[in-house]
């Protein structure tokens, strides 16, 4: 029976599993990079003086920092994509419960499903991470950040640790998403599947609490010394990221009415975004993270250079930007995957719109308006996360409240985010619109 449910889930919407699988593969790759970087730095045949210098300038910590950030990102992003994939199956889960599956059995089936996605994804991700790790170590040596004696080494625990991270985060995300559908009484479950799920009675207050906490901390840190502000920055970022993640549906519902200004298509798009705020927020979270991470790193570097007039060293620049680039790319891929999943599940809705009189072009315009709402929300939320994190640092270390945002970066981030969201929403929609609506409805 378990395998039957999984087969149904995979056949009905194979795209739904592409999101979790890709993000898990990338998570496995990042963890591998981090572990191998650590092994390479620790295992290098260095003199005592060389090692002491590395410890002093903090480059021995680079691998560990990378690893911790990778795991943190994986928990957030794999959890979110897996949650979206399971949420998509609410109706099938309800049927599964109706024909006699106990809540525990439903949870087991979901857990098995999450595990099954994680295994091939991890096996694909680890080799990718080995390649990436080798390239990174090579880059560290090439930029003179570490001595030439440092060579690429494979960490012995790569496979078990990568599996622990992907399977663990996948299970966690899936089981949290499955709490509602597995606990509902079957009769309610079937009705529930058709109705919008839940009202976020825990989610929204918790999100508000985290954002309020992060903002307060940000204000408090601004009044302290530079070192404390620097140490507390991570905590601000953590709570802001988790907080905006939880507030995702609310943010989209607040932003949606803006689309009404665009015209009739925008009004339909606004309704769609409100109705689907929950599933769309699965994409909003990673996109916000990508924007927030990138903005934080770029702006703090640019402002420091601008205020002090001292250009950042090439090596420092490479280290920061390569890390940020990898994280942002990871989050962006996850966001696009979730958007594709959400869009693929809407084939029937698009067909209904066309039946009641929307042309192909008109339907696509509605989808593009939805994409603009998601883009704008991700940009604003990402900017808020970055601002809360970096303003105290700027104020305490540089004595300025004004962040310096390079124009090419600003344009790049806006265009890049819009391109990602359009690729995730409008592209699959355009493909689906090629089928005659009456064939989809049948």
């Amino acid at each position, binding site marked *: 029976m378990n395998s039957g449910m999984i087969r149904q889930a995979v056949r009905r919407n194979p795209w739904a599993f592409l999101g979790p699988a890709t993000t898990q593969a990338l998570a496995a790759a990042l963890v591998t990079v981090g572990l191998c970087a650590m092994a390479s730095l620790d295992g290098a045949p260095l003199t005592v003086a060389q090692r002491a210098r590395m410890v002093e300038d903090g480059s021995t910590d680079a691998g560990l920092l990378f690893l911790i950030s990778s795991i943190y990102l994986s928990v957030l992003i794999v959890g979110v994509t897996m949650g979206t994939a399971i949420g998509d199956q609410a109706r099938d889960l309800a049927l599964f419960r109706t024909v006699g599956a106990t809540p525990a059995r439903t949870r087991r089936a979901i857990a098995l499903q999450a595990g099954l996605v994680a295994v091939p994804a991890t096996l694909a991700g680890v080799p990718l991470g080995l390649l990436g790790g080798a390239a990174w170590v090579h880059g560290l040596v090439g930029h003179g950040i570490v001595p030439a004696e440092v060579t690429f080494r494979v960490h012995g625990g790569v496979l078990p640790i990568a599996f622990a991270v992907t399977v663990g985060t996948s299970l966690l995300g899936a089981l949290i998403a499955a709490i509602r559908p597995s606990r509902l009484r079957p009769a309610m479950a079937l009705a529930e599947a058709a109705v919008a799920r839940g009202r976020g009675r825990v989610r929204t207050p918790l999100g508000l609490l985290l954002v309020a906490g992060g903002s307060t901390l940000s204000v408090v840190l601004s009044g302290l010394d530079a070192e404390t502000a620097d140490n507390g920055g991570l905590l601000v970022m953590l709570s802001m990221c988790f907080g905006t993640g939880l507030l995702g549906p609310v943010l989209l519902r607040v932003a949606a009415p803006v689309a009404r200004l665009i015209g009739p298509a925008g009004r*339909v798009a606004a*309704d*769609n975004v409100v109705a689907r705020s929950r599933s769309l927020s699965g994409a909003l979270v990673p996109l916000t993270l990508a924007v927030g991470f990138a903005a934080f790193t770029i702006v703090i570097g640019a402002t420091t250079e601008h205020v002090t007039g001292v250009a950042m060293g090439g090596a420092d620049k490479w280290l920061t930007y390569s890390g940020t680039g990898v994280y942002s790319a990871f989050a962006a891929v996850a966001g696009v995957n979730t958007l594709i999943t959400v869009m693929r599940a809407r084939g029937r809705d698009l067909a*209904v719109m066309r039946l009641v*009189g929307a042309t192909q*072009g*008109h339907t696509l315009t509605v989808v593009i308006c939805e994409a603009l709402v998601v883009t704008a929300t991700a940009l604003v939320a990402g900017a808020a996360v970055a601002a809360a994190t970096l303003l105290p640092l700027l104020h305490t270390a540089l004595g300025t409240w004004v962040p310096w945002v390079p124009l090419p970066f600003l344009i790049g981030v806006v265009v890049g985010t819009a391109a990602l969201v359009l690729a995730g929403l409008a592209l699959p929609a355009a493909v689906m619109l090629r089928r*005659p609506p009456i064939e989809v409805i049948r």
Partner: protein
Amino acid sequence: MESVLSLVSVSRRYRRGVLALRDVSLEVPAGQFVAVMGATGSGKSTLLHCAAGLDRPTGGRVRLAGHDLTGMRESARTRLRRDHAGFVFQAYNLLSELTVRQNVTLPVRLGGPRGRTVDEVLDQVGLAGFAKRPVGELSGGQRQRVAIARALITSPSVVFADEPTGALDPTTGGRVLALLRAAADRDGAAVLMVTHDPAAAAWSDRLVLLREGVIAYDGPAPRADEIADRLRGVSAVAA
């Protein structure tokens, strides 16, 4: 009376050579309620899809509200459908996460004519006060009435209904049919309904029986039991 829907020797051949409709001609005047019946595979759904411009016939001509659909491009046909046709399906085909009002006004918000107000059509289908409810919370009969309200809001020339009572019990189905009847009598819309249920067909003015893609009977709709007899006769020959 000028017909609002006109099919002239319409044929539809599918890719594998199956001829679903052959030389079907049908003139429907405004205010007439037509029931199309026939065995499974007789071509009744194909007839409805071709008449509504949802499918392109391989031969013959279709005119809807005075416009020739035959040579039209997809986007022009879509606009014609939006402005002059309303649709009711067996599976409701509503956007279940939107509210009743959002569903009913969808054709208007997509640029169609606002023939009537939301309150007016919701009142007509007996759903006054349901405007803000999410469609996902409604029963099957209520959903089908939302679909009818959505079909009527543009004051269409023709309402196309594909097995509108197929998923409903006789009482609920009766209410839906009475609404289609009223659309013809009160609003003067032509109604083209495909059904397999003789009791549903008995609500119509005119019965069209299809057999293997050809019209086997076209005349005034008799009583339900007679319809059932005729249907059995047609199906027996077909089988």
